[in-house]
């Protein structure tokens, strides 16, 4: 009898899979679809990324957003309704509009308005003070119980991103860290280290991580971006996941987290 693994491999061609449906990815008329500018990668990837960002900037400058929206909205006819925000591409050195408006963080609100929409007490680090901007992202584009991001344009000792004009982001959502994904998501250029923030378990990710997967309050997987692609501290504050992103050291991040 052939080896079991060989037999299984042989079965691959014999499986009667259901017919693959024609997948049509499209967006309803009037839907605004835009992609934020790509952040840099490495090697030739970075070159392509920069080229893509430059192209988006040129196209956006020439066309503004309306013709682009019309063109893209005319793509197809989708069954799925998606809430999406528009992000102006690659502003430099400081994006126009409200701080953080190009990061796809949701709707700009006041801290009080955000607090009225979420079930947990929004944690504001006293080391940073009152945020310069607050964004709220609700389902379906956000986690099941919403996501709040506090945006800071300045913080002593922390560099401000030339691309975004943001120094620190503090993002909060009800959910849990999915540890299975950490290794896969972080990428080879980043390192991960377990930390404790006031007794709460967390991770310090140094390098340039871009993505973060967690399970929200309903247990759904949420694939979220780490917006600044800088060092990130993530910790579970009694069921609320807090992420602190910025060009900062671990000690600075822990100090901010400790001031919550």
């Amino acid at each position: 009898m052939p080896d079991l693994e060989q037999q299984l491999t042989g079965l691959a061609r014999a499986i009667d899979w259901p017919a693959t449906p024609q997948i049509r990815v499209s967006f309803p008329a009037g839907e605004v679809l835009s992609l934020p500018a790509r952040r840099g990668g490495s090697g030739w990837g970075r070159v392509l990324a920069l080229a893509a960002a430059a192209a988006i900037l040129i196209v956006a400058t020439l066309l503004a957003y309306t013709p682009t929206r019309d063109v893209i909205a005319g793509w197809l006819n989708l069954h799925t309704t998606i809430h999406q925000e528009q992000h102006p591409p690659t502003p430099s050195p400081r994006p126009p509009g409200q701080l953080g408006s190009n990061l796809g963080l949701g709707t700009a609100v006041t801290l009080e308005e955000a607090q009225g929409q979420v079930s947990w007490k929004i944690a504001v680090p006293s080391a940073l003070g009152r945020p310069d901007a607050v964004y709220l992202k609700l389902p379906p584009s956000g986690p099941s119980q919403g996501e709040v991001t506090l945006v800071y344009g300045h913080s002593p000792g922390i560099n401000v991103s030339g691309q975004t004009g943001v120094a620190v982001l503090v993002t909060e959502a009800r959910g849990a860290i999915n540890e299975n994904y950490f290794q896969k998501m972080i990428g080879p250029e980043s390192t991960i280290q377990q930390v404790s923030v006031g007794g709460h378990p967390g991770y310090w990710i140094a390098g340039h991580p871009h993505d973060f997967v967690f399970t929200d309050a309903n247990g759904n997987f949420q694939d979220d971006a780490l917006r600044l692609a800088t060092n990130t501290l993530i910790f579970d504050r009694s069921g609320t996941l807090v992420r602190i992103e910025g060009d900062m050291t671990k000690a600075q991040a822990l100090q901010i987290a400790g001031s919550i």
Partner: protein
Amino acid sequence: MEGRPADDSVLIARAVRGDSAAYEEIVKRYQQVAFRTAYVITGSAADAEDAAQEGFVKAYRALDRFRLDADFRPWLLRIMANEARNRVRSSGRRHRLELRLSEGFRPGDAAPSPEAVAVAMDERRRLLAMVNELGDDDRMVIASRYFLELSGEETAAALGIAEGTVKSRLSRALARLRARVEETANA
């Protein structure tokens, strides 16, 4: 070069610039593996179709986060698998995956006799039935690696586990399947 398929990274860069045809090409290229991966997780063709549909929308929206120097397929399959798992979770049920043998399939041996074909088909049918009887974790890891022919990295992405866990889980699944095969042979 004319007629040569464009690299994923080229298509992705074009899609990010708003080239709808480029993204349609990506969808066309990966819709089968995306749908089948979702099917392995949900056990339902309807749920798998919905998951793949939504997964491609989410992938498009997340394209700016994809690093062009990384492999696209594992990244895409992770999004598809998340969608599939979310569907299973929200519906509160997982259909039991029942893989079947294609009736039209014939073993590849040169001009086998009708008897040899029948024996080979019967062996395959029995083996597949034993795979179907395995627990969810065992069945999914075997289906991912052998039937979907995913790499270790892609299987890890699809199943939401670390790559090292894929190896250990697969090893245990094969051991259990081997035991069943031997048990049946000795019966």
